[in-house]
């Protein structure tokens, strides 16, 4: 056992209102400068939708992340180091500016400076790349709230995977939001792709950073990252990425995106894991087993043996305590409601998600049954507006069982708490039905619903 500490995040998508405050505060703080106009360390995607850059999840096209070779060994999907070196001057699988978007501004000054003229002055869009007039045709958030769904949503790589034909019809509309930052993976393929050794994982907290002095701008990291969360600064010629706000983390402040999240859905905490077992877990043969495999790498911070090993590894006591209090540990391993994003990329991502429980009782309604009844809530899980297969393609490599289990827990919590809310006798059979005690369910409710500042971070 080699204990290491990892700073990690969980986002509760069930609470995400899609407001993009995280994107704006992050951009203002970090990428509001020349060379990174198009860069959003934090972005929010409407699902179904293409994402940013568009269709980044289509690894058959973009070749990001890892895969197993014939011998069952982990290899970069984009090819080994030799291939990288061969293509170092013309990386063929880079998203182009068109796949991100051509950033623009407007000639605002004309509003003030326009001479007397025939028409009302207007500010026209100008490319921030070429400086020329342009028609705006794509952005980092073009398909926000299903905008242009008819034209674009069918290209959602996740949607294309699920066998159900999802009809884009008014009555069957569904959507949810997926905020994304760098995953600060335990097994980062960006780092492994870098010919310069410029990408590293901080030993004390696992934050993945690009050494700005060492980066040579080969952009292999951009291709290697399946989440497309490493960006190329076209001014400096270097790669840049989300830093997990390390200058804030180091002084005890949460990341900008977390602290400014008005949905109060982001949790940050330390996780202890066994570094010796990462490779093995990432090499798990069946994609469906990757979620459990990654969970198994995490160590129980209250286990005396782990505490002992942590001490030996030089992890300070307050860090161990932080891991014990960590909401991340609780959400991933105690309540088991958080899931990794695309575990099949085998990077062992460390930003996890609680899937959204979104409108659940439509079908029950049609049967005329009591929609409040907890048994019906469970029945409704199978009839979510959001196809459960869609969520499974995001979080469990297509295995619906773990997603189903999470949604049942959330539904059970609502049902259990309703009795308490209305002053009725609580029904212990509800938490029992999802494998929880009443106390556990109440504690989970506190963490998810009250979500006090001190407990989120």
């Amino acid at each position, binding site marked *: 056992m080699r204990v290491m500490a990892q700073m990690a995040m969980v986002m509760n998508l069930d609470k995400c*209102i899609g407001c993009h405050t995280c994107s704006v*505060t992050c951009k203002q703080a970090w990428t509001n400068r020349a060379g990174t106009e198009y860069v959003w360390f934090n972005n929010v995607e409407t699902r179904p939708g293409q994402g940013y850059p568009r269709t980044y999840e289509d690894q058959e096209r973009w070749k990001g992340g890892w895969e197993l070779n014939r011998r069952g060994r982990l290899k970069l999907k984009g090819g*080994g*180091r030799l291939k990288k*070196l061969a293509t170092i001057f013309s990386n063929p699988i880079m998203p182009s500016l068109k796949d991100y978007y051509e950033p623009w501004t407007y000639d605002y000054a004309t509003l003030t400076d326009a001479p007397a003229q025939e028409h009302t*002055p207007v500010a026209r869009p100008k490319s921030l790349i070429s400086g020329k007039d342009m028609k705006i045709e794509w952005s980092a958030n073009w398909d926000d709230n299903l905008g242009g769904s008819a034209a674009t949503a069918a290209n959602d790589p996740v949607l294309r995977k699920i066998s159900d034909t999802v009809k884009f019809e008014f009555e069957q509309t569904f959507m949810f939001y997926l905020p994304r930052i760098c995953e600060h993976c335990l097994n980062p393929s960006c780092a492994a792709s870098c010919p310069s050794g410029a990408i590293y994982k901080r030993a004390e907290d696992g934050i993945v950073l690009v050494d700005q002095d060492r980066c040579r701008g080969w952009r292999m990291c951009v291709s290697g990252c399946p989440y497309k969360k490493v960006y190329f600064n076209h001014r400096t010629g270097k790669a840049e990425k989300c830093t997990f706000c*390390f*200058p804030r983390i180091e002084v005890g402040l949460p990341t900008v995106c977390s*602290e400014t999240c008005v949905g109060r859905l982001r949790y940050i905490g330390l996780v202890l894991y066994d570094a010796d077992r990462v490779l093995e877990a990432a090499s798990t043969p069946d994609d469906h087993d990757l979620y459990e495999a990654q969970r198994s790498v995490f160590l129980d911070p209250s286990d005396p043996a782990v505490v002992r090993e942590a001490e030996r590894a030089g992890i300070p006591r307050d860090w161990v305590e932080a891991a014990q209090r960590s909401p991340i540990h609780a959400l991933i391993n105690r309540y088991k409601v958080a899931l990794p994003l695309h575990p099949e990329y085998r990077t062992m991502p460390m930003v996890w998600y609680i899937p959204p429980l979104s*409108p659940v009782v439509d079908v029950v309604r049609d049967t005329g049954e009591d929609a409040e009844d907890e048994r019906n809530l469970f029945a409704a899980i199978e009839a979510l507006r959001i196809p459960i297969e869609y969520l499974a393609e995001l979080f469990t490599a297509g295995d619906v069982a773990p997603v189903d289990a999470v949604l049942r827990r959330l539904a059970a919590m609502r049902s259990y708490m309703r009795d308490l809310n209305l002053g009725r006798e609580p029904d212990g059979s509800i938490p029992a039905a999802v494998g929880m005690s009443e106390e556990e369910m109440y504690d989970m409710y506190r963490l998810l619903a009250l979500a006090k500042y001190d407990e989120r971070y």
Partner: protein
Amino acid sequence: MSEALVRSRRFFTRAEVSDDLRSLHRTGGRGADDFYRDRWSHDKVVRSTHGVNCTGSCSWKVYVKDGIITWETQQTDYPSVGPDKPEYEPRGCPRGAAFSWYTYSPTRVRYPYVRGVLLQMYREAKSQHDGDPVKAWAHVVDNPLRAKAYKSARGKGGLVRASWDEATEMVAAAYVHTIRKWGPDRVAGFSPIPAMSMVSHASGARFTSLVGGTMLSFYDWYADLPVASPQVFGDQTDVPESGDWWDAGYLIMWGSNLPVTRTPDAHWMAEARYRGQKVVAVAPDYADNVKFADEWLPARPGTDGALAMAMGHVILREFFVDRPTPYFTDYTKRYTDLPYLVVLDDLGGGTYRPGKFLTAADLPTHRNAENAHFKTVVMDTRTDEPVVPNGSLGHRFGETGVGRWNLDLEDVDPKLSLADTSWDSVLVRLPRFDTPDGAAQDLSRGVPVRRVGQHLVTTVYDLMLAQYGVGRPGLPGEWPASYDDAAAPYTPAWQEQVTGVPAAAAARIAREFARNAEESRGRSMIVMGAGTNHWFHSDTIYRGFLALTTLTGCQGVNGGGWAHYVGQEKCRPITGWAQLAFGLDWTRPPRQMIQTAYWYLHTDQYRYDHFGADTLSARTGQGRFGGRTTADLIAQSARMGWMPSYPTFDRNPHDLADEAAAAGRPVAEHVVAQLKSGDLRFACEDPDSPENFPRILAIWRANLLGSSAKGNEYFLKHLLGADSSLRASEAPEGSRPRDVTWHDEAPEGKLDLLLSLDFRQTSTTIFSDVVLPAATWYEKHDLNTTDMHPFVHSFNPAIAPPWQTRTDWDAWQTIATKFSELAAEHLGTRTDVVAVPLLHDTPDAMANPHGVVRDWKAGECEPVPGVTMPKLVAVERDYAAVGAKMQALGPLMEKLGTTTKGVTYDVNASVDYLRAKNGAVRGGPADGRPSLKRDVHACEAILALSGTTNGHLATQGFKTLEKRTGTLLHDLAAEHEGKQITFADTQAAPTPVITSPEWSGSETGGRRYSPFTINVERLKPWHTLTGRQHFYLDHDWMAELGENLPVYRPPLNMGALFAEPSLGDVGELGVTVRYLTPHNKWSIHSEYQDNLFMLSLSRGGQTIWMSDKDAAKVGVEDNDWVEAVNRNGVVVARAVVSHRMPEGTVYMHHAQDRLIDVPIAETSKKRGGIHNSLTRLLVKPSHLIGGYAQLSFAFNYLGPTGNQRDEVTVIRKRSQEVTY
């Protein structure tokens, strides 16, 4: 080789490379990270917020490095709401997070600007007139050619820089000249929503009020005022803070898209679900909030009232008639007008019509009691006799009401229905409007009756059951056979045809809502918003909603009731703000105008109404509106003193005062005599005559022409004289007003000066004659509150106002000082005559017994000021002293005190405190008065003069109120009696306010704010006729419209009214669709829509959302350029095509302004318009009622709404080659 390269890292880096070369860990040696560390560093963090009309009221940290604002993040230091609840932290949204972009952006207004052609003429004129600015201004504006030259150039570029001195001198000269020539009421000011920055609002409002100008209302103008609130509650609006959503067991979001429009609060809803709250969304599209809802009821746009009525039908049937629910019965008897007796008027032929409330004046034993016409009557179960309970309007005023204005029923048990002892029944005719075109029809249903004296009476409850179609055995009439009876209003099946919501779903949601309320004792809540409140008939929609929350005992209960969030209406320290804003410390009364009627007349939109006011009448009405238009009703309302009207008379009020003085009689007497003789007329009776034009409009903290001006093209044409794309035709002869004078040629360019103060360029600034550069919200001191949370917090300057910008407080002081300099010579001291309408919360509300219309002009009564016409108050104005008065708190504070909602406060102690705190002014007209020179002084004054922020005043106010109610109240504020919130407190952290009689809810003991909890728990009456919440309104005009009771009225039929094509028509010009303008995700009204961050996250310019089905009909694909055209104007935008939109409806999100990426329109060959280029004003007559109980005027409390939802447009694909 590459392997070797990687392996080499082990030797050349201070990092640990894993054995499999897969990962690289590094400790220490991180000089390369410095860039990010440096970027995060800053010199200071300053608390401020955003003075924008979004209700957010979020406290922010503004970061400053090297004297430059870098960015902002949310504060998280709100006081806790308790260990068992979520918190208010963090509050903010992406719009607010992008604000600092404005500070240094190229759209920032850095210097004063004047329209070039005007400035040139002014300079020339000044040199011709010996440097006299006032003569120079007159020289320009009084010459038609010169005036046209600069007015027709409005909006076409050509702004030039000027100095503050020159620009404000010209502005001051314009005010002096206008007041002298036309009168002070020809000057108007517009700045909305004081809560979002009270001092900044008060700056120009104080100047406007002190010079006798007119402040324009905003809440009704924005259509954010739910007129149902004064109608039902006798209150402007009072709603729960968002933290109280947590307390609800059942939450319906009805036309309110919380994630978009209540971004910082939406988490309460998301989190309350985890506590077992059931959440329902009613929205025509798959809106952002639908994602959270357990059920989605996609009611067709504008049909929400039908769904609400059907839910009411189910609740009345199941929870009142079939199984009377004790909680509901008890609540409605005590807190609503349901048991009150209504007289039935005999129509002959065995049918009746609901008439007036029975009052004490109808009872022999009470006939001579004080205010007998305003004491309403119930039937007592024990004695089976009529009794007069405490708490009605008649008890609120007068000697005998002392100690009796309360809801204590003592030992009276009012009967809800007369059906228990009397099976006598008669048929009443009830209105219905549920045909697709909204045409009036009626039906007859029976009610049980009793005879009291010569009157046949029934109860409001019995009328409600009849109206809702809830039959009882033995009653005659047309009743629905069952819920499945689709022909009879208001069954679930009936509503399904109207709304598209399945009947079973409507019934079940109603049942669940009521059952939850029964079990939780009132914790069912409806969050309602602009989606349902911006319709022409929104008052009826809302009365349908309020019936649901009131019948089920949810009002005045934490976690229950209505939660109307449209407009930041709650300026918590309201009393202090009002004194400053309206100059009440120096001069009373101020002029305050209903803005909708103002623009309806002054932008000549009334000329384009082709239909009579009786188009809206019910068949059960008496033909009161016959032969007249809406403009005629506005004039009638004004002359009867119901609603204010400025400019008031067709003569300068100074001249009227001089004439009276010359004739040696009081001004009021003179005016009445002149009116009676016909020598003097109300200005609104001839709005197109030059002496009645509005001449100056000052706009600050607002973007009228880019945001709220419904009928934008009418504004451009008639008010400004600029180019417009107006395509409508004027009313032909025969359809024109009867009493209002018609001019063959409609004037263009009525306004002489459009002045705006802003920090960015907007549609308003580019059409302005003078633009003054304003400080932003990060560059000044101010105060901020909201209805969404209970805290008051502050603005603070992160940097000093850059370039030549100034704070609003500073700018208006500058203007006032210049004005006084010029006024000393040109105006001096004059007497003004202010016409004041009959006011709410005063004995004026008893001017019209039974709400009977009495028009002196029609010979129905004598014109008696303050009774049958406005009060006429002579006011002395020392114009040369205005500058000094701006800067000091005046002596009327001690002399008259302050009054809010009928409670008068003694503020002597506060004035002494302020003199000590702010220092005193030395010398001049304000010698010795507390200083208001600095914005911080104004903040302190607002805090010291309000009960919510000064515990002494809150306690004092409750003690005053206790004398009238005879119930215990002052303990509510006692816990904070010694607390004085200072500006420094608000700088340190958001500070909770104190429970005060200024509002209806209690926060005592740290509970969440919910309105009317004081009424319910302390038996304090509502400010209505009965003192209870009203289902029934007995005013003549309400009867005329068929709106005595909640009723369903469909959206206006624009085909019938204006010959627009029918919805769904597809032709050469495109497809005809309903045109809605909901709030935008990427802006707060027009604020932020031009912000580069918001544009980058959206589509980067004006868009219209449409369904894939409608798009297919006209060959439109996503991001295509389209044109939307109707009689009001033309819009060019790009289409966003999405299946989440319902067929037949498009959304053009509100206030995208016209400055960003708007090409030339093919249709008009002019710059494409804004969202309001396709809308116009339509005034509902019932909103003009005044002088009667809760239907009496107060500023922003009652007035016609500037609604815009009922509009339709034709939309088509246009050439994809666009030019600018």
